């Protein structure tokens, strides 16, 4: 288990690898294939390479590693796949093999990854420390200086390209240990605060509490919870992901709640698979199974309520509202209708569908940091699509996507409000 040379892909069940019959139905939905028309950059091509690694025909080399990280992990191929190939799961295993093989290792990459994945994201103290630094800098008008000296430098040398992507920092952060005052009889739910969400979009967490309380829930934000580990699992650091999962399972007893609520698509897509992540851990597996059953995306959870709060009437002309499907909501969790049902019911807005709303915006976790050119090309297409809708507001349920769309709409002078759906609900529900 701890041998660095053991190839994880070789331990996968034959049936998992052979589910792919390379029919090609995934190809038209894959952003990297459609941009390159190169099978190496396609889901079935990557799976073919994974199979070659699993069979020992190929050892993970530079091209293999490059393609595993060229993939956005948007999972559009999973939605398209009639054969139900678990591509995302296979990709996580393959990336872990890439990291173990160290073919991509350079001192700079290793440092950056260690700083981010091992120290910053898993540590609420460090994240908040960085957040406070940036928040202070912003308050004192020094945000751009802070960006050059702070968080961004950790990511990459391409400062000019990246600086606009760094999220604005909100204060105060989420109130850990919060419990709904009073004692209503509604569902008892735990809210996960997230890591980036907590420092960059604490308002989304506050709005989530508002929405849950308006639905009649008892809300807790349990202390001790940590980053969910999705960034780690998606980037080949499965051991760290497992450590974080155990911390969360220790902090929150799934049996004590009716639901464990997350408001970030990328986190939810990972949080619902703790049992698979901990499948070899007898101490935690059972608890993880109970956890998986209770984790729900906030929007999907809200849409199950038979009666929703009244939304306020429009003041003046209605604003045009559109919606981008966060990949890990629509492809990762198959949640498509719920956000639309909730948002279309808001009287303040005129609803308009975004063309190709299920295509990735290019944010893709930390992809817009690791592959800025490709991420930007996808982001620019998305901005073009949003422009055709004439929308005043675009809702998207993931912090990474919000960062990407805010930065690019600003750059393209597109006057659109980028907002989490839950914020619109919190504003509008009476």
């Amino acid at each position: 288990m701890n041998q660095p040379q053991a190839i994880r892909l070789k331990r996968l069940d034959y049936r998992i690898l052979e589910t792919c019959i390379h029919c090609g139905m995934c190809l038209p939905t894959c952003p990297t294939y459609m941009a390159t028309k190169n099978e190496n950059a396609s889901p079935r091509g990557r799976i073919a390479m994974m199979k070659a690694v699993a069979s020992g025909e190929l050892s993970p080399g530079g091209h293999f590693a490059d393609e595993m990280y060229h993939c956005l992990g948007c999972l559009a191929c999973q939605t398209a796949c009639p054969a139900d190939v678990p591509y995302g799961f296979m990709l996580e295993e393959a990336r872990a093999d890439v990291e173990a093989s160290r073919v991509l290792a350079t001192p700079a990459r290793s440092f950056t990854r260690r700083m981010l994945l091992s120290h910053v994201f898993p540590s609420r103290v460090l994240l908040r420390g960085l957040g406070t630094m940036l928040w202070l800098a912003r308050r004192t008008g020094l945000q751009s200086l802070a960006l050059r000296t702070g968080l961004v430098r950790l990511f990459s040398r391409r400062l000019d390209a990246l600086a606009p992507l760094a999220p604005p920092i909100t204060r105060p952060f989420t109130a850990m240990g919060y419990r709904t005052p009073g004692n209503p009889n509604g569902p008892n739910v735990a809210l996960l605060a997230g890591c980036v969400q907590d420092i960059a979009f604490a308002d989304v967490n506050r709005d989530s509490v508002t929405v849950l309380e308006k639905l009649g829930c008892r809300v807790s934000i349990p202390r001790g919870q940590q980053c969910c580990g999705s960034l780690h699992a998606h980037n080949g650091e499965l051991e760290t992901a497992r450590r974080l999962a155990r911390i969360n399972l220790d902090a929150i007893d799934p049996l004590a709640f009716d639901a464990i609520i997350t408001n970030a698509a990328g986190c939810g897509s990972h949080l619902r698979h703790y049992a698979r992540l901990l499948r070899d851990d007898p101490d935690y597996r059972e608890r993880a199974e109970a956890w998986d059953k209770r984790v729900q995306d906030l929007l999907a959870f809200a849409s199950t309520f038979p009666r929703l709060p009244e939304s306020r009437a429009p003041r003046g002309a209605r604003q045009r509202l559109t919606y981008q499907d966060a990949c890990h909501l629509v492809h990762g969790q198959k949640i498509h209708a719920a956000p639309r049902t909730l948002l279309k019911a808001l009287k303040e807005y005129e609803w308009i569908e975004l063309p190709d709303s299920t295509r990735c915006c290019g944010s893709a976790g930390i992809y817009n940091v690791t592959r800025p050119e490709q991420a930007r090309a996808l982001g620019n297409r998305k901005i073009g699509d949003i422009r055709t809708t004439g929308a005043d507001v675009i809702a998207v349920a993931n912090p990474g996507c919000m960062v990407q769309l805010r930065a690019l709409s600003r750059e393209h002078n597109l006057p659109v409000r980028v907002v989490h759906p839950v914020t619109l609900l919190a504003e509008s529900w009476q």
Partner: protein
Amino acid sequence: MLRDGPGGSESHAMIRPGTIQHLISLLGRDRVLDADEQLIAYGFDGTATLRETPGCVVFPETTAEVSAILRHAHAEGMPVVPRGSGTSLSGSAVPVPGCIVLCTARMERILEVDADNLQARVEPGVRTAALNEAARVHGLFYPPDPGSMNISTIGGNVSHNSGGLRGLKYGVTRDYVLGLHVVLADGRILKTGTACVKDSAGYRLKDLFIGAEGTLGVVTEILLKLSPIPRAVKTMLASYTSIRDAAATVSAIIAHPVIPCTLEFLDRTTLQCVEAFAGIGLPVDAEALLLMETDGHPAVVEEEADVMMAIAREHGATDVKAAGSPAEAEQLRTARRSAFSALARRAPTVILEDATVPRNRLAEMVAFIQETADRYRLQVGTFGHMGDGNLHPTFLTDERDRDEMARVHDAFRDIFEKAVSLGGTITGEHGVGLSKKDFLPLVVDDTGSDLHRVIKASLDPRGILNPGKIFG
């Protein structure tokens, strides 16, 4: 040709470093793939169990580049396997060991949509669905719609004479090709056909290259007919407790005579897999489903739909209903197109075939397929384009089980022999490729086989173009 067959590093050695260098000088470094890791993804198409390792992959972007590549390959005697999106289902795009894979996917410009003449001129890498999107702006559409139309390319469609769901009313790819630019094996460029509906000048050379699976030349430009989008469409679904009743319905509709645009069939195994994927509420307890569609003038569509639904009920349909909206109809068509891939939920290896019979022999053929599966102890899912007699019996198996794979092969031989004895053919729309070349003599007689060889030898004397496919 199974995965432990010849191939791998030994065959890779067949390509000469000088060839790679020459191709790089023609196309640039980024349009030639030659690292071992990069070649794995080009070892297969959409066909089960077939896999080989090419020597390199090239991405030409113009007819002149294709010509230069072939001139060099011809001079060097290097095999060349043309490829579009690699969704072919007979192994025609599977590389031969050490070959140059010539991928046309980046030749993807729609050169012209000529709405006045109901035509479009495209490069071979244009996706079938993309052509339809471009035509729709002008109120037109391109009727052939293979199951893989969202990614299949026009070049691939031409090379396989692809069909689709609308074949019985609208015909197949061959019926829409007016003209072609083809690069011959030695690099010469042939421009054949005109924009005229009528053209009796000389041999119809274009027909040689349609369905030739890239064995006679590389298609680099296609002039296609388009049709006006019908004003009305009605989509219906009929459920049956027996496959024979569904087949009898199809025969009765054709004999009535009504020519619907679509009469698609799914058996129970297939429809359960499709429903597991699509989740659109298909009746999973039915033994068979017919997806029926008629299009055209609104009044005619209403009348034909009524006739079709009545015939379905007369022939034992337990439930017949019309799609409530265009979106619902599109869901049904999309679900049908997923049938082959959805069957992969049941087994690691799915082997799909393409036996086709005259439409009045459908019930007999469908029953024979089931008997054959039982006789060989095999699990089968059958679906297909019943309206044009084109069935897709699909065996659900595991390629590691050599005994079962041998039984699959025998079962297919029985099925093909039966289809031919009923006046049918071994492939309606997928082509022969590698997987059916053993069976080609069932439908091509000795004289025909001689002509195949003569034509191949005169157009490709060194045998470099997709060698070993279809025959030989």
